């Protein structure tokens, strides 16, 4: 008998001798990610209420930034272009949201989390799986996860753009059109958003490798070694950053949207 065949047979789906609530973690991940995906998809297709400009404020939803084409003052190239096909749904979010979505989809933390929660592969550690065939990430389609570093490059660019949005949110226009430095609740929401997203992005495993992890002798490249050390520091809490930033980026969109719809009123400190 072959060695592998002599080990114990595969357990049935969900079969385990673990007495704890092993299902709780994958169910929580399933619910958390599902809520975010459903909400963000809905929000991305709205194409409206993504910018708040009342009372001199200047808040844009992170789902819609950078606004390449659109109707808000944040738009880089003006409104929807005339050449845009009439049959193709337009929303400024759809032009950009694929990049951060791809970054999270291929993220090493999220991969492990959603393989468990959505594909039960495995449902949790030492718990039986529903399938016998296993390909892993060495063949199509999951071999495509190796594209992660390219999404990381884009995600880093987005951090600077969102930081600019947070900066813009600190400037309020008066009735004469003059900008004054100020602080509203929305400003804080956007600032916290970019901090959490930066904590998540700059703790990325791919960045950790590219900035210095590829070296066997980091002492010969002190700048890389320092970068590796900084990214490693964030990387140790990558899961925490991932969830906090996911929740907050969704909340930021909710905040801007409800303010823009007139349901919430942005409180301005000064």
């Amino acid at each position, binding site marked *: 008998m072959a060695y592998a065949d002599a080990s114990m047979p595969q*357990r049935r789906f969900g079969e385990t*001798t673990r007495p704890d609530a092993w299902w709780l973690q994958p169910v929580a991940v399933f619910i958390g990610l599902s809520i975010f995906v459903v909400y963000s998809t809905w929000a991305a297709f709205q194409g409206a209420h993504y910018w708040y400009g009342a009372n001199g404020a200047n808040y844009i939803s992170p789902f819609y930034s950078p606004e390449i084409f659109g109707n808000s003052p944040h738009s880089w190239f003006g409104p929807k272009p005339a050449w845009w096909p009439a049959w193709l749904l337009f929303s400024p979010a759809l032009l950009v949201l694929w990049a951060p979505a791809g970054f999270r989809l291929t993220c*090493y933390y999220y991969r*492990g989390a959603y393989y468990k929660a959505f594909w039960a592969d495995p449902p949790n*550690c030492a718990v039986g799986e529903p399938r016998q065939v296993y390909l*892993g990430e060495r063949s199509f389609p999951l071999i495509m996860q*190796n594209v992660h570093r390219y999404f990381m490059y884009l995600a880093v660019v987005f951090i600077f753009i969102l930081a600019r949005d947070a900066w813009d949110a600190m400037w309020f226009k008066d009735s004469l059109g003059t900008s004054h430095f100020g602080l509203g609740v929305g400003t804080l929401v956007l600032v916290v958003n970019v901090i959490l997203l930066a904590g998540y992005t700059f703790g990325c495993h791919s960045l950790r*490798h590219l900035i210095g992890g590829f070296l066997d002798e980091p002492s010969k490249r002190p700048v890389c070694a320092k970068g590796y050390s900084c990214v490693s520091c964030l990387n140790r809490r990558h899961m925490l950053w991932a969830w906090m930033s996911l929740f907050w980026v969704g909340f930021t969109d909710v905040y801007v949207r409800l303010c823009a719809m007139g349901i919430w009123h942005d409180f301005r400190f000064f």
Partner: protein
Amino acid sequence: MSTATFRIWRGDVNGGKFVDYTTEITEGMVVLDAVHKIQATQANDLACRWNCKAGKCGSCSAEINGIPKLMCMTRMNTLPTDKPITLEPMRAFPSIRDLATDVSWNFRVKQKIKKFKPRPPDAPDGTWRMQQEDVDRVQEFRKCIECFLCQDVCHVLRDHHKHDEFIGPRFLVYTAALEMHPLDTEDRLPELKQAHGVGFCNITKCCTKVCPESITITDNAIIPLKERVVDNFFDPLGWLWKELRPKT
């Protein structure tokens, strides 16, 4: 003095069943103590591998309440005793008898990994010079006691029996220790991608969770190896950068 019931798997490669044993538990006992007590008083023929009783030899690996653990490092006061405590052999390896498994496959895998190949000596006396910060990273991997709990919990081996295509977390850690060593010059990336199957790992982090030496297996060994494989085989921009960058 309290008691606890152990539901211990009794059998061999041809099959077996769980048998309940109730024994007295005293303060400070670990699961291995209880197993020895059961051996001494109720089941003299119960097979169980052990050696140091200090979490350093890696012999007493088993599955306690479904989680791979060292029996000698699992204190009884961390386990609920209101229900039977299940004790099973590691499921990723063939059973020899009761709690003892045949882990010989691991040693054969280790032989397949390219050995340490240092650069020429730095000094005329045949010695090398290394900076501490350069070996800090691989020193974590040297803590491994080869208990094979990580191999056991890995679903690629445990459930899918990919022993012929995947070397498992233990040997990815071993490979990382060699591959990231400041003196090593060997290239193990082609094997990692193909014969050693690093792509089979889908980052469940179960190996990290069960490691009794708290080695950050997934984040510090496996993912960096995956990234090195990406460097070599899946990153055209990286190849271009290597060609165009200023050579030092």
